[in-house]
């Protein structure tokens, strides 16, 4: 079946079997191997990408279901200042070791930083519960996201009134 979608701002088209996941379409057909596949049943979060701006599991979405959608993978953040800030703190806080979970962690981090400006450490932890790091480097990841939040929204972000 034909699939046409927007991938990191550019049109991407392919001919796939209906059973091809969006993750496999991205990796095998579009040769963007930054999106990683761990468990392939929605638990580990490594394959998380942004679809129409919201994080979703690319292993649980059929490529044909993503027809016409706007997909953003770890390769697609060039020039994005929010992601540049997250990158900087991931580096500073040693928030990655082997790097396997990192593409999914970054997608989730981007969602936390943009959707939850008031998130404290406990909220960050809870929001990260859908992304597994088998190096168990969670503390660095939590630190990095907290610092990115502080940097982008201001260190007084938690004391300001919560948005409705």
């Amino acid at each position, binding site marked *: *079946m034909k699939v046409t979608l927007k991938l990191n701002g550019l049109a991407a088209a392919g001919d796939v*079997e*209906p*059973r091809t*996941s969006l993750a*496999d379409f991205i990796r095998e057909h579009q040769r963007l191997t930054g999106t990683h596949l761990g468990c*392939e*049943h*929605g638990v580990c*979060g490594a394959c*998380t990408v942004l*679809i129409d701006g*919201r*994080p*979703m*599991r690319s*292993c*649980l*979405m*059929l490529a*044909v*279901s993503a027809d016409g959608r706007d997909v953003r993978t770890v390769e697609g953040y060039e020039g994005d200042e929010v992601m540049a800030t997250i990158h900087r703190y991931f580096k500073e806080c040693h928030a990655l070791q082997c790097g396997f979970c990192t593409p999914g962690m970054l*997608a*989730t981090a981007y*969602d936390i930083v943009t959707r939850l400006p008031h998130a404290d450490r406990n909220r960050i932890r*809870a*929001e990260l*519960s*859908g*992304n597994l790091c088998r190096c168990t480097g969670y503390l660095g990841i939590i630190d990095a996201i907290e610092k990115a939040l502080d940097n982008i929204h201001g260190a007084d972000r938690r004391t300001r009134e919560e948005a409705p």
Partner: protein
Amino acid sequence: MKPAEFAYARPGSLDEALRLLADNAGRGRLLAGGQSLGPMLNLRLATPELVIDIGRLRELQRFESTDGALVIGAGVCHADIEDGRVPDVAGGLLRRVAAGIAYRAVRNRGTIGGSLAHADPAADWPPVMIALGAELHIASVRNRRRIGAAEFATGVLATVLEPDEMIEAIQIPSAASELRWGHYKIAAKPGDFAESVAAVVIHKNGTGARAVLAGRSQTPLLLPETARAIAGVRAWSSDQHALIAEALDSDLARQGIGSGLSREDRAIHLASVSRAAREAIA
């Protein structure tokens, strides 16, 4: 870890979807958000000949609130409920439950109708919909019918749906706004499948209560004795826990499952019911 082959159709309307489902009864599977069917396809626990993608049907994504009642399309995703885009006619219960389902990346896709239709005993919506007295609107090419949430699931991953039927919408009665509620979920980590989950509602005027227990392999179970023990209570006291324990044991025994439970299972079920009751009473 890749699905077996299947054919794919994305109907443009609900009528077309129902027609496809009827023409392929027993061979086709509906795909909405794919957060339950997706893993089953990948693990080859489900091997349908045809996948019917209803994930974009506008008819299923509508919601309407009138006089405190809510009719919510089966295709509304959990995140839309979590974020309050759907009016929470149950005074915060719907948002709380939605926010506790799996992870944000799953909530952005998974749908309320899909969760109910999948009928996983550890799923979040079924016990809550039973507690709220919700009705499911069922559609097929043959007819439309309604069924109470409590009568919907018949067992683990089993429901009253005929092969040509689907859930079209869920109706939450306006009485939901007259309820105090409590909800407690015990899971190994945030977003994991529930070991035990309890929903308790009490009428604000103290006339009655409903308590529902589910989790792990336990399909949602109404607890009438427990509800009676909770209904008239005005304030939580240390005696309540023991009274609830007694009532819960009686409810479980009446269902013939009390003796089959391990001590640990009984303990976590009691903990979730008691904590949900405490929240509703407080």
